[in-house]
């Protein structure tokens, strides 16, 4: 800043938009840039899965004479198809299954985080706005109670209640994948509620809220149009960090056989199947899906930390 004043460009410097300010802060941290690149890589993989994957993820190939499935990386089947990362126990291409599995994993994670955010932000905003009233008390006690469950145990209990596979409620059928999204959304919405409530409380004390009130704006208008836009940065940070947690929970459920069901390609499920082949030395069966899950969690963690530092410099300085 000081240099800019001297060179007479103070005006220009002061007019950086919020986005530019954010980008300046964000790119300073190399690790968060790496996180962003990893997340981008996964997004591309998920969106373009049908174009990238060499084979149909559920097509089974026959091992040539003298070999059996699972086949190691760079093997060929009877018809000369090449399997870059080998095959699984049913002779399906691991690379294709991993790519489609990544797509499903991100689908579930993005879906459940969106639902969790919707529920959590609504609860938190209402509680924060009505702070100190019975509404706040009721909502926050509900949040406390939901947070008193260990999260994976709660998710497993919910799957236990709904049953494994799709569920039928009267005339409606909820597909398994939507059910898993709902289960995870219920598990994690309280965290969004807490964050939102805290930010809304902070903002309520500020002058612009008082000003809006004086001009006669209605309560709903103040909450939706004035306060909520200011809660977006911390909620984005929370969502990015929660993406990592959700990816872990989703793949944990699938690993336990309680999440996505075969033959749908799922990274967690692949690891579960791979367990039986570890002592045969079929390392590729486990390393490919496990590595993909780990890298995804790493990417979202790094990105989330970077976003937090860039969007909330005050807290970042404290953390260093």
């Amino acid at each position: 800043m000081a240099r800019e004043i001297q060179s007479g460009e103070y005006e220009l410097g002061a007019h950086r938009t919020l986005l530019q300010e954010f980008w300046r802060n964000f790119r300073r941290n190399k690790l968060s840039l790496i996180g962003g690149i990893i997340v981008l890589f996964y997004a591309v993989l998920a969106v373009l899965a049908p174009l990238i994957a060499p084979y149909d993820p559920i097509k089974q190939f026959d091992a040539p004479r003298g070999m059996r499935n699972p086949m190691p990386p760079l093997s060929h089947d009877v018809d000369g198809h090449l399997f870059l990362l080998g095959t699984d126990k049913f002779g399906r291409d691991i690379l294709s299954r991993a790519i489609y599995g990544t797509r499903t994993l991100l689908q579930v994670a993005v879906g459940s985080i969106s639902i969790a955010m919707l529920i959590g932000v609504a609860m938190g905003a209402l509680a924060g706005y009505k702070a100190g009233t019975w509404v706040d008390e009721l909502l926050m006690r509900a949040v406390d109670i939901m947070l008193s469950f260990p999260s994976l145990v709660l998710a497993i209990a919910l799957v236990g209640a709904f049953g494994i596979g799709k569920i039928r409620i009267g005339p409606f059928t909820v597909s398994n994948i939507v059910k898993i999204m709902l289960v995870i959304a219920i598990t994690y919405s309280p965290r969004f509620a807490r964050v939102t409530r805290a930010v809304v409380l902070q903002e309520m004390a500020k002058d612009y809220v008082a000003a809006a009130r004086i001009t006669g704006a209605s309560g709903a208008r103040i909450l939706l149009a004035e306060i909520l836009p200011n809660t977006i940065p911390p909620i984005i940070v929370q969502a990015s960090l929660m993406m990592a947690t959700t990816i872990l929970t989703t793949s944990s459920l699938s690993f336990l056989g309680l999440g996505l069901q075969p033959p749908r390609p799922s990274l967690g499920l692949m690891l579960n199947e791979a367990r039986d082949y570890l002592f045969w030395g079929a390392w590729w069966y486990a390393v490919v899906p496990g590595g993909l899950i780990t890298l995804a969690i790493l990417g979202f963690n790094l990105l989330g930390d970077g976003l937090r530092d860039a969007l909330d410099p005050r807290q970042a300085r404290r953390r260093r």
Partner: protein
Amino acid sequence: MRAYLIKRLFFGVLTLLVTSFLIFLLLRVIPGGPVDSLIEEEWDDPVLREQLRHELGLDLPLHLQYARWLGKVLRGDLGVSLVLYQGEPVGRIILARFGVTAQLALLALSIALAVAFPAGIVSALWRDRLPDHLFRLLALGGISTPNFFLGIALIVAFGVGLGRSWGVGGYVPFGEDPWGWLLHLLLPAVVLGTDHAATISRMLRASMLEAAGREFVLTARAMGVPRGEIVVRDVLRTAMIPVVTVIGNSAGALLDGAVITEVLFRLPGLGSLLVQGVYARDLPLVQAVVVIAVGIRIVVNLIVDLTYGFLDPRIRYGGER
């Protein structure tokens, strides 16, 4: 202090009551329920169904069912396993398995602390130098690697690679064979403890650095107090409070990890029991395990809150003066 303790216990019991009711409700609103899991397709007929519902008390209104369940629980009867261990009392099954989970969790937490403290202290003392960067990378890896993948990697490395019987799964009681006990429990405990070690060491580093910037540390240095003494007496002690919170969170979350670890290493604990119960749709069993999981967490949280008072005498409970 006593008033605070009573209040906390009261809320703890209340939370347990509400959660147990929610779980109870949840496991019953779904159509079918226990009866479906008991009747084989070819034996399905309405009369049998009705009779079973009556025997299990499922024809009563929900609140009466819950009252009956609660009354039994208060007398120490958690119900009877319907599918998995047909007719066996749930309480006895859980008791038999609780020990394994408790040993696993305690061993994991000890390993996590034994790693986290040296790592955190070294990172703080050599801030932004090689050891700090090294531990930062390790911690990032530890936090990002899922339990089940780390477990599989260790099984491949120790079991397959070195040809040892480490991590082959199963459980041997300590009394029978202490060496075998350690052999079977060590890898699962390392797997369970890793991400907690990472979280705790990072928190310790951060809060030590914060404490080191405070005035009393400067004063102590100005007075010529030796560096080691400052680190131990002033910095570390001040840094402990946020660290205890994180350790408490870890202890509360150990059950989550235990589910995965027990299934992966085929340990007969509460976590694997929960998963088996869900597979078999054994509702009384699932219900009891979940309620106990919540109970354990409430107790852990209470212990953590009470620890603050010992660490910082200024913290008084319940607004006492």
